């Protein structure tokens, strides 16, 4: 299947990546080539085959549902662009800032 320009534009919106209009033609060709190449998988008879989600042949580990970590607000905000300190105390938390979402 080939991915036309409209499809590439739609995927780019789903992926939240701005793609300049003049790059759509090139991407459409490149992505179509890759998809065309992986389509050879259709030759494989996979009737009754279970899909593999993990190679790790193990039971998922479980632990008690208790707090094991936390109190690291400053670490978490250390790399943020323009974080806002929480009112009334530097270790009490803080905020990431983003463009206004609600008017």
């Amino acid at each position, binding site marked *: 299947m080939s991915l036309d320009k409209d499809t590439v534009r739609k995927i780019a919106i789903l992926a939240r990546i*701005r793609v300049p209009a003049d790059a759509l033609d090139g991407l459409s060709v*490149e992505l179509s080539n890759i998809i065309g190449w992986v389509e050879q998988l259709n030759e494989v008879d996979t009737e009754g085959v279970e899909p593999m989600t993990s*190679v*790790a042949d193990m039971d998922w580990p479980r632990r008690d549902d208790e707090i094991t970590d936390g109190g690291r607000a400053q670490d978490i905000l250390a790399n943020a*662009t323009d974080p806002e300190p929480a009112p009334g105390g530097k270790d009490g938390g803080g905020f990431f800032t983003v*463009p206004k979402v609600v008017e």
Partner: protein
Amino acid sequence: MTALTELSLAEAGKGLEAGDFTAEELTRACIEALEGGRDLNAFITETPDIALDRAKASDARRAGGKAAGPMDGIPIAIKDLFCTEGVLTTAGSHILDGFTPTYESTVSANLKDSGAVMLGKTNLDEFAMGSANVTSYYGPVKNPWKGPGGKDLVPGGSSGGSAAAVAGGLCSGAIGTDTGGSIRQPASFTGIVGMKPTYGRCSRWGIVAFASSLDQAGPLTRSVEDAAIMLGAMAGHDAKDSTSAPIDVPDFSAGLKEGVKGMKVGIAKEYNLDGMPGEIEALWQQGMDWLKDQGAECIDVSLAHTKYALPAYYIVAPAEASSNLARYDGVRYGLRVEGESLDDMYEATRGEGFGDEVRRRILIGTYVLSAGYYDAYYRQAQKVRTLIAKDFTEAFEQVDVLLTPTAPSAAFAIGDKMDDPVAMYLNDVFTVPASMAGLPAISVPAGLDGDGLPLGLHLIAKPFDEVTLFRAASALEEAAGFDARPPSPKGGAS
């Protein structure tokens, strides 16, 4: 005495133990080599101050009779995909601009605890997506080996900076990550040993995620023994990674001197690709003869779905990447490009922050996971993955290890294969199947091509049987007697 930077990791460890030199002297020699080798662009961040502090601490431990083991005082390089506390971590991407983790990845923390000395963070393909180290935001890495007429070659990828640093004598060893061949293929291209352990052997915690069901950390070194030593310091169960295997770490060096007498080595005809260069085929045959001469038995096996491993990988890996890389949104860390609205900011940040190859893979991943295509592409690839793993399970009922070439060619010129993504993907045709099955595998330098460039041979073993893998690799290494070295970065032979 041999220059300190020429010693293998094991030799350096013995020299430190014998008091022939100090960790500080060894580290200063590496820092000097690193400064002299900057033309390779192997490092994104050099950390000489941290290195000297840790080297001095190592010397103090040793003086007090408290050396931690064979890695204590050994200068190493760390792929810039491992988060390092207080040290810039970029993943080779613009989108992680300025990101300085407040925590240390488990593998680099284990190495630090073993006394290893961090020299710096090595260059890589952006988010480890590439086979030539040409997609890094920080520019391509040069292979210390030069092509005809002194032409600059790629070091392979994605762990290209780590491979170039080890091959160029800038460090005693380095760590990389391998998702589809990103340790083994650059090792082959630069004439060194590169090893990917079994999925689950090393913790993935604190490694910038690419494809979580495939990513594994591993060592790049100048000998098989070095790789066994280094893996011993990296591996181990970690509760912070739920796919980390809760099993003990064996002595990976245990079988190195045992030889391969009676070992069964599988040869899969499906690895004999159409159009495979004659010298790759000849080297493969040579590898079989070397092992047979030492008493191993070569047995033909069938891995019927081999040719589907690469296309299946190029659905599974981009699908996982598109999900993992959704976290780079400009909100919490890294690059932010301002926008009118939240969505506008996301799109602008990701549009500017990701390079071409990463963008391509995110778009492919988004497409194959999208409604209407999920079953046709993603689910079919996962089913094929089951069949690939089953082929290996059946082969390993007959044999102890499998022998294949590592890569379909030697290193190529920087700029080659750039206009055709699929041609670039074919670099990993021999390494991807073991990745899809989560198996341990190693590339050992085995010979030179017609242009005098290194070629590797590749061994694959059963899950968690790294001891047998190293044993076979050691036999191959001894028979190959590969002692060719690239020209010194400062000119002249080293």
